[in-house]
């Protein structure tokens, strides 16, 4: 996950390059380091460097890393002709390389040749069973072919080996949500919160899933996790504030005044409503009255 400052840095570089201010190489390095997916730009800027022999030789050994990066970008933007060329260059330079082998398999994937790609990945895995990238490509291929249950299976297998890969847990959770398998999604978010308890995103997602599951107990838990999200984000998290309003209102509806926590509930709700109102006044003043009527409903 990328921090806000890092994202701003990338965006700044991007507009700098767009406006002719140079900095292509810095941009490409940063995108590579942060593992961002900005393939249109990577292809554009990378191509301009690789096509210019002077710029290319100025890179030294980093030239090959750039070839790899631009090849992947080309595949992502369906410029398979360019991707093939770049992969060829790398093949000639590093004939027995496993890394290039992975790239070749990726190219097969991009061309939609699923069986060949699967064969390529399996043989690469024989030599190196613990290569996370290949495992992940399998999941991606299943997804791309619409084989969601296959993707889930591969992802679960992957997580048995690499259980600390939080991005994978998130991916799995999102797949479960898209299939409306909320209990399983909740489990994933529980794992994430256990391993990284201070990341508000996980608390929020968990709360959303609990709310969607419904039922009094889940609603109470959802409320708790919306509250912890607000705690971790200094009180201004729009989605969490709305979440509090929704969950307190849902709890009220279910308990119809029988609940002794009623007072605390309504206090919490009105605090959230006030916070939202303040924020809207500041940043979206034309929506303030709409917010008020929404909260009443």
């Amino acid at each position, binding site marked *: 996950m990328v921090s806000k400052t890092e994202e701003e840095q990338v965006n700044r570089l991007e507009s700098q390059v767009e406006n002719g201010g140079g900095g292509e190489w810095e941009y490409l390095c940063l995108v590579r380091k942060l593992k961002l997916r900005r393939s249109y730009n990577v292809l554009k800027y990378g191509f301009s460097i690789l096509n210019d022999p002077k710029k290319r030789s100025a890179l030294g050994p980093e030239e090959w890393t750039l070839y790899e990066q631009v090849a992947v970008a080309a595949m992502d933007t369906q410029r398979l002709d360019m991707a093939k060329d770049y992969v060829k260059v790398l093949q000639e330079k590093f004939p027995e390389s496993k890394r290039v082998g992975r790239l070749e398999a990726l190219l097969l994937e991009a061309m939609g040749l699923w069986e060949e790609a699967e064969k390529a990945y399996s043989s690469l895995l024989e030599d190196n069973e613990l290569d996370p990238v290949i495992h992940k490509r399998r999941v991606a291929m299943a997804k791309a072919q619409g084989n969601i249950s296959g993707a889930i299976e591969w992802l679960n297998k992957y997580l048995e080996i690499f259980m600390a890969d939080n991005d994978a847990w998130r991916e799995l959770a999102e797949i479960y949500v*898209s299939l409306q398998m*909320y209990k399983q999604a909740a489990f994933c978010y529980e794992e994430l919160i256990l391993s990284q308890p201070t990341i508000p995103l996980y608390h929020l997602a968990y709360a*959303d899933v609990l709310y969607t599951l419904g039922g009094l107990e889940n609603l109470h838990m959802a409320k708790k996790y919306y509250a912890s999200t607000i705690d971790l984000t200094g009180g201004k998290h729009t989605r969490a504030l*709305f979440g509090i309003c929704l969950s307190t209102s849902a709890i009220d509806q279910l308990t119809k005044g029988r609940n002794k926590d009623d007072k605390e509930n309504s206090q919490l709700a009105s605090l959230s409503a006030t916070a939202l109102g303040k924020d809207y006044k500041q940043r979206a003043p034309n929506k303030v009255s709409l917010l008020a009527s929404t909260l009443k*409903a």
Partner: protein
Amino acid sequence: MTCDFSRELEKQYSCKPEEANSFSESRPQPSTGVLLGRSSDHGDSVEIVDSVPLFHSQIGLLPPLEIALIMIEEFYGEKGLSIVGYFHANERYDDFEIAAVAKNIGDHITQYFPQAALLLLDNQKLEALPNGRDRSPVVQLYIKDASRSWKLVGSEGGNQLTIKEPSGNIVLLDYLASEKWKDIVDFDDHLDNISKDWLNSELFQ
């Protein structure tokens, strides 16, 4: 610009070309939106007048959906419009199935508006637009039939989807070419940053 579809006995649905544009094919995630409009006086046609883009991520979760629906209903209710349908664009190019999630949202809307429409973006048609001179809508219409399941509406038969404005697809092409879709704010964007306006009032004059 409103499209009007008329039919004698059954409901007709009209559609604004901008809606198909709002939910761009370039987003690598599913895109969803809500359709607003009204029933005609005789109740034989439903006119879709506007739309609001909803989400591009995690569309299976209830809280953002509930907030969005309430807010949108509140806003458009004052203008005499109500939520008349739901729009969905699949992540994958060749995916023509309506996800269970989309059906659920459609079901939810039919509780309040029984003739609700579900529009599924036809990715292939959208992609073919620049090449051909197709004037037919780039969306597929689904409505709930008597067995309470969502059925695709063909060009013959009871229900029909027509575009009032014949040059609708040309406008759509223009928007695509000018990359207007990059600037569209959906409800997801709004919830992440409330200063972004999901009404997109400046974008489509």
